[in-house]
């Protein structure tokens, strides 16, 4: 049995092909999905998605969204998704540092909310690069 994965963003289809296994970071922790998984619906946190193609692991940074699993089909709806190999490590690291600095000097409820979001996005991107193994 093979799992078909479909990652959709408002702009385009990021991934639409068959995979062996995926690991999703959901709001309640990471879950691994193998073929013949029970049908579930879950919210996806800002974090990484790991995809196994045969013996190769790929990572993708997901910017929060929703996933539906069932019938050996996984549909992932996210605001933005970037493949780990497409991210520029230096740029991502810089963005992370800027986000950290911004959070430290954020004042007021609103700025903190914004800075936190930015930091989590930046962190997910850096993780997506570093996890490649």
């Amino acid at each position, binding site marked *: 049995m093979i799992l078909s994965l479909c990652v959709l963003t408002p*702009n385009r289809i990021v991934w639409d092909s068959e995979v062996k296994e995926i690991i999703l970071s959901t709001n309640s922790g990471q879950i691994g999905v193998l073929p013949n998984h029970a049908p579930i619906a879950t919210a996806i946190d800002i974090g990484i998605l790991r995809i196994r193609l045969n013996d190769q692991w790929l990572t993708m940074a997901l910017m929060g969204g929703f996933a539906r699993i069932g019938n050996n089909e996984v549909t992932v709806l*996210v605001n933005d998704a970037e493949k780990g190999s497409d991210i520029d490590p230096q740029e991502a690291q810089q963005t992370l540092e800027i986000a950290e600095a911004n959070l430290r000097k954020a004042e007021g409820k609103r700025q903190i909310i914004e800075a936190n*979001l930015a930091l989590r996005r930046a962190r997910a991107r850096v993780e997506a690069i570093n996890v490649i193994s």
Partner: protein
Amino acid sequence: MSCSNLTMLVSSKPSLSDTTSLSFRSSLSPFQLPSSPAANNPSRSSSVTPIHCGLRELRTRIESVKNTQKITEAMKLVAAAKVRRAQEAVVNGRPFSETLVEVLYNINEQLQTDDVDAPLTKVRPVKKVALVVVTGDRGLCGGFNNYLIKKAEARIADLKQLGIDYTIISVGKKGNSYFLRRPYIPVDRFLDKGGLPTAKEAQAIADDVFSLFVSEEVDKVELLYTKFVSLVKSEPVIHTLLPLSPKGEICDVNGVCVDAAEDEFFRLTTREGKLTVERGVSRTATTDFSPILQFEQDPVQILDALLPLYLNSQILKALQESLASELAARMSAMSNATDNASELKKSLSMVYNRQRQAKITGEILEIVAGADALT
């Protein structure tokens, strides 16, 4: 130059109360602007006042009109090509929005009995409203930017009358320069959008709106953009963005209706048609989830994850529609300008030829008279 009163129009626009609002307007001021919209009146300048100027001036004028015509023609073609690209962008986003609507519909069904309490759906008494004003980045597109800004002004006046505080989030260069010149209008943030709208730009706006709303700085967010109806028609609309209501109806706690009459509520079960001349609203097939589907988290939490996605796709759609309308407006403005230029060229060459003929006739008469005098 002595030839005045000629209507060489790039575009005609109904005059604002404030004439400085558009940069290229001032460059046109020596010419007289008729007050009728150019869109439905292509043959208008046949009754212009006579042209009084010399042959040489006429020649330069004809030359410059010819050049202008070339430019407007080119701009028209460029806009037409870009409309296609904008159309493709909408088509690319289709799978996402279709799946999203389907999932939202299903979850709403499941939650019908529950009391939904997601932060983005919380309806509070409205004390302050954020207006997201989406304008274009460039001019030369007829009344496109003007109409939207006028709409925004009208909305601001409405809110003032109701005694509700407001703030503006301006998207697009034209709106930015308009609000920058009016420091008495409170603007929360200026945002730029370059080229084709992508999820990144929509995300920037969504982040801003989200934090404003969640931190309770504003109690309602409205989106002002130009809805694309067809290639020749588009209209500025006001759209309530937040609070999102799964049921689609928003009623103020105080009993005062804050929504403008033409306010459009979003519908969760429908999606916009594609960018063709007709705008169809088709219903997405909402197949039911398999009955054994489990929710990994609380349904409310899942709704919480979905609503920002929905917010984003709404904003993205508004940006795309706004761009499509801008390009369509530019296309028609430029084709009008091209028509006007060719008409002007025609009447100028007619005058030129007449004057030249008159001059030749005069010269021949002189020669004949001179020859007569010699004999």
